[in-house]
């Protein structure tokens, strides 16, 4: 069913309620408006059709439109989430003038089935105001502000057309300023004193007193390749061969641009139009086709070809500038082998499960390190050795059963084994991190204890505990 024929809205969850984000023309006429909760909207229009919002797909569509709009002028950029800016300086005469160009743009949009409004003016802000607010009564409605007439033409526009944040607009309205024209007689110094420089700068940009160029989004180099088959394929050998060709294409483009890839997605379309995809990650940016292929091949067995695969597309999801660095003289080869192992493990277990340690500046033994992902981890600084010995294993704090008291206890039981004290060194007092507040932990005394049974334990106690309780904090080798 075409969207234009029914009441249609896009919804999103906001502040605990489902609200309308965008409403079509029929909906607006029925009295719906963006920001309304879905429950209210259903009360007004019971036959409202809604879809949840998908901002990422909207953004991707807007980016595609922006690239499309380069047919009018090379200087295009996106404006917010629902606008396009085209700098047509020096281009309008190619389309028989501004009026004809505006009409042509709108016609092309309606061919694409996109509802659009367009405005042309001297400055970016003025053109935006015309496009977004030009249809309102009392603003002229021609869609074009002639050169030099910006100030006069914008006077009737509502204050929202400034394109400034909601708080300032609220404040301006509270002072009774409803149109842009009402700002003209006010002194800029007074406006600045009350609202800060932001309003003044926006106003100057709107009037063309300050430069406000259209900054074209730099085209991202796309690292993707696709292959379509005359007949659907289903044999693993065929899929592997196709994949090898795709990887070769992507890697060639990567090395031309000096990029390395960190994550790739292989999408395939089956003969029955269903889709599937495989994702892999790599430990370090790479342009190595063999390495990428080996990571994919581990997962190719899970692909369900169904009735056959029609089309395959390989896309680099994450790329980074690639600097072929030599890590160390002798071990560059080893390092790349290790990276491949990390990638293999990470692709099956998840990269958050392949870890290495990183030192943390803390005197608390259990906070002196943290786990970081081994993939792409920079070389950590060396582990400074402490004057005091630290246990090989931390066991949390396990209470011991005291058989013969002492400081530390002369005989105790831990994990069902009895231990007798042979020697002890300590105490080493470790305080809490005072900068984290008083309740971040207690002060503890630690003793490194040699037992007659051989075990070397790290016992801890609270200096203020009465009666003292002893805990095993760690085990020495």
């Amino acid at each position: 069913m075409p969207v234009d024929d029914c009441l249609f809205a896009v919804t999103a969850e906001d502040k605990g309620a489902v609200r309308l984000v965008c409403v079509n023309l029929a909906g607006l006429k029925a009295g719906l408006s963006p920001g309304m909760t879905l429950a209210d909207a259903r009360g007004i229009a019971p036959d409202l059709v809604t879809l949840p919002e998908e901002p990422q797909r909207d953004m991707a569509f807007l980016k595609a439109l922006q690239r499309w709009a380069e047919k009018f002028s090379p200087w295009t950029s996106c404006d917010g989430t629902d606008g396009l800016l085209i700098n047509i300086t020096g281009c309008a005469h190619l389309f028989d003038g501004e009026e004809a160009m505006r009409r042509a743009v709108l016609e092309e949009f309606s061919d694409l089935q996109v509802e659009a409004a367009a405005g042309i003016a001297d400055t970016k802000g003025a053109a935006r105001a015309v496009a977004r607010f030009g249809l309102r009564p009392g603003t002229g409605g021609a869609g074009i502000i002639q050169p030099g007439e910006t100030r006069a033409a914008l006077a009737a526009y509502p204050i929202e057309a400034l394109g400034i944040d909601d708080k300032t607009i609220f404040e301006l309205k509270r002072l009774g300023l409803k149109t842009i024209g009402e700002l003209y007689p006010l002194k800029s110094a007074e406006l600045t004193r009350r609202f800060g420089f932001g309003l003044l700068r926006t106003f100057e940009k709107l009037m063309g007193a300050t430069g406000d160029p259209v900054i074209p989004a730099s085209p991202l180099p796309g690292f993707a390749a696709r292959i379509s088959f005359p007949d659907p394929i289903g044999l693993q050998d065929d899929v592997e061969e196709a994949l090898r060709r795709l990887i070769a294409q992507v890697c060639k483009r990567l090395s031309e641009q000096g990029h390395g890839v960190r994550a790739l997605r292989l999408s395939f379309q089956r003969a029955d139009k269903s889709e599937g995809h495989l994702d892999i990650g790599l430990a370090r940016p790479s342009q190595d086709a063999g390495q990428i292929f080996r990571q994919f091949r581990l997962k190719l067995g899970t692909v369900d070809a169904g009735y056959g695969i029609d089309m395959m597309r390989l896309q680099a999801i994450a790329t980074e500038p690639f600097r072929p660095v030599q890590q160390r003289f002798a071990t560059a080869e080893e390092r790349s082998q290790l990276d491949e192992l990390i990638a293999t493990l990470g692709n099956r277990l998840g990269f958050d499960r392949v870890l290495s340690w990183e030192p943390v500046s803390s005197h608390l033994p259990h906070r002196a390190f943290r786990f970081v992902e081994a993939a792409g981890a920079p070389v950590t600084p060396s582990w400074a050795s402490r004057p005091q010995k630290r246990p090989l294993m931390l066991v949390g704090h396990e209470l011991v059963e005291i058989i013969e008291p002492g400081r530390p206890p002369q005989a105790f039981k831990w994990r069902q084994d009895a231990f007798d004290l042979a020697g002890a060194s300590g105490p080493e007092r470790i305080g809490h991190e005072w900068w984290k507040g008083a309740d971040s932990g207690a002060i503890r005394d630690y003793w490194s204890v040699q037992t007659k049974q051989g075990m070397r334990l790290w016992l801890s106690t609270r200096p203020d505990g009465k009666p003292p309780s002893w805990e095993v904090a760690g085990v020495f080798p």
Partner: protein
Amino acid sequence: MNEARTESQLPELANGRVHEISGAAALAFGLVSAHRGTVLICGSPAQVASIHPEGAAHFIDPRQIITVPCPLRADALWTAETALRSGSVDCVMAILGRTPGLTELRRLQLAAQDGKALGLLLTEQPAANSAAETRWYCQPALSKTPDSTLLRLSLYKNKRGTMGHWILDVKGDKDTLDLHATPVREPDGTGWHARR
């Protein structure tokens, strides 16, 4: 450079084979044996997370260690096999609750052979039979001086060589480990055989 010196007839843990170590000081003995080159430690998350890098730094540079916590035993075995076969790490330490079965261990042996890497299984409950190249039982021993670490080692299975008991004295730091092993004739009642 890293240098570990052993003065005595303590059998070397052969590269390209999988060895089994049990006992309270198994991790320490494993790190001492692995102390050259890169090490991958896989096993149950609780065990792997309890290792304190500052403590391990007495034997080995923690930067050489990659840890892979695996909640599933099958994942841990797969990780160990993959890492051994790749040959890109020098030593793989798998912390497993019990000895893997003969088939599983045979796979690990073949993988270690392919990758020419040292495989170490740290087990809490060693099984009666194991396909490991050597089996060790390792307990801390009472040391007289605080700066040395005494370990009591019992080698109770050795496919190519003799068995025996040693007291291993570990001195020094991660750069120069000084190992001194003294053969002990009579196990003094706390060894593996007494425990069974």
